[in-house]
């Protein structure tokens, strides 16, 4: 009896010790989580003040550059030769381009900050309306759109629209040299996941660059307009939905973009509107 009691007491005291250690560890973990949370809050605030200063301070010198070169053009044009005038135009264009870059970057950073609600989005309709806008405003081009019907996704509607617009813009741009340009949108199922795709038959790209397609300011075709922000924005938005995006392509044979929006609970392909 006595022996058993001693064994039991020993066991109890060992358990208590273990528990104490576990408790201490938990406490430490809790502290380090709090620390992380504070650090995160701090870095978020830093980011905000950074973007604020970008929005205000970086624009101001650009206005001077554009303003004074424009003023030289207005008031001193007679004193300048053709080359001089050309240089001033270059300064003015560069400052405006820089300003668009800043705007693009700011937009990109704001996507990350915005709080929004997830809802059901009829992606097919969205793609169709964006396609119509492009066809209306750029009537010189004729691009065939093939859009799969009744694709419903769950996500942030305004962000999904930006995502699709950027992908379509990309496809629209890189099919400009193709006579029978075509852009296909649809989705396929793979192991319960819905993979959306947007394919074009444009200039395509070299697969060895595939990893860098979505980097900020990464431009792969110098002879096409662009700032290198569109696809970076797309990636940011997909990530915001907990998903991922990748691309496949071949030089001269078009590009295909695939993405998954992971936070969807289910996708009802025949869900209609």
């Amino acid at each position, binding site marked *: 009896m006595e022996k058993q009691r001693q064994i039991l007491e020993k066991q109890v005291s060992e358990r208590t010790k273990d528990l104490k250690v576990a408790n201490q560890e938990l406490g430490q973990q809790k502290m380090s989580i709090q620390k992380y949370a504070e650090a995160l809050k701090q870095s978020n605030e830093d980011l905000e003040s950074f973007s*604020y200063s970008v*929005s*205000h*301070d970086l*624009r*101001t*010198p*650009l*206005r*001077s550059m*554009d*303003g*004074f070169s*424009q*003023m030289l053009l207005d008031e001193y044009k007679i004193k300048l030769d053709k080359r001089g005038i050309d240089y001033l135009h270059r300064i*003015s264009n560069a*400052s*405006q381009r820089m*300003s668009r870059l800043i705007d693009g970057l700011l937009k990109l950073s704001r996507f990350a900050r915005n709080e929004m609600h997830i809802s059901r989005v009829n992606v097919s309709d969205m793609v169709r309306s964006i396609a119509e806008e492009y066809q209306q405003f750029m009537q010189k081009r004729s691009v065939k759109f093939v859009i799969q019907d009744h694709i419903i996704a769950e996500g942030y509607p305004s962000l999904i629209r930006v995502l699709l617009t950027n992908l379509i813009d990309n496809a629209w741009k890189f099919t400009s040299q193709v006579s029978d340009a075509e852009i296909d949108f649809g989705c396929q199922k793979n192991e319960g996941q819905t993979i959306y795709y947007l394919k074009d038959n444009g200039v395509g790209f070299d697969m060895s660059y595939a990893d860098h397609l979505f980097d900020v300011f990464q431009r792969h075709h110098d002879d096409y307009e662009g700032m290198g922000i569109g696809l970076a924005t797309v990636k940011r938005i997909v990530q915001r939905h907990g998903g991922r995006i990748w691309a496949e392509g071949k030089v001269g044979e078009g590009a295909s973009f695939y993405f998954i929006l992971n936070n969807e609970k289910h996708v009802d392909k025949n869900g209609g509107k």
Partner: protein
Amino acid sequence: MSNKIILLVEDNPDDEELTIRILKKHHILNDVVVVRDGSEALDYLFGEGKYANRDLNVMPVIVMLDIKLPKVNGLEVLRRIREDKRTKWLPVVILTSSDEERDLIESYKMGANSYVRKPVDFIQFQQAVEQLALYWALLNEVPKGS
């Protein structure tokens, strides 16, 4: 014309030069008083500091106010303007590089009459300044002796 003053609160000498050139070019003949920071703006409006001898019966027809200013920032200047019965009705246009939503909201909360983002594009900037001056200096009317 001499009592139709435009008060330009601008700390950036380039923007000041551009704004004044635009006004001259469009034959807007109002006197433009330029102050370089928020505290100087308040001194001017309330006849303090180096403006102690100023005739306070003459108030600007419009204040063009930047938000990010040395010493006292634009929103604080605006708050003080609205607080004081001498300047309560003074038209204040926020003219700033910032397009941050919270600056916009704060400005209107404080009683700004208008909020204009300074465009980088000079042609657009020119149009903005010209229209602002024409509207506020020529068309707009405020109650007298409030």
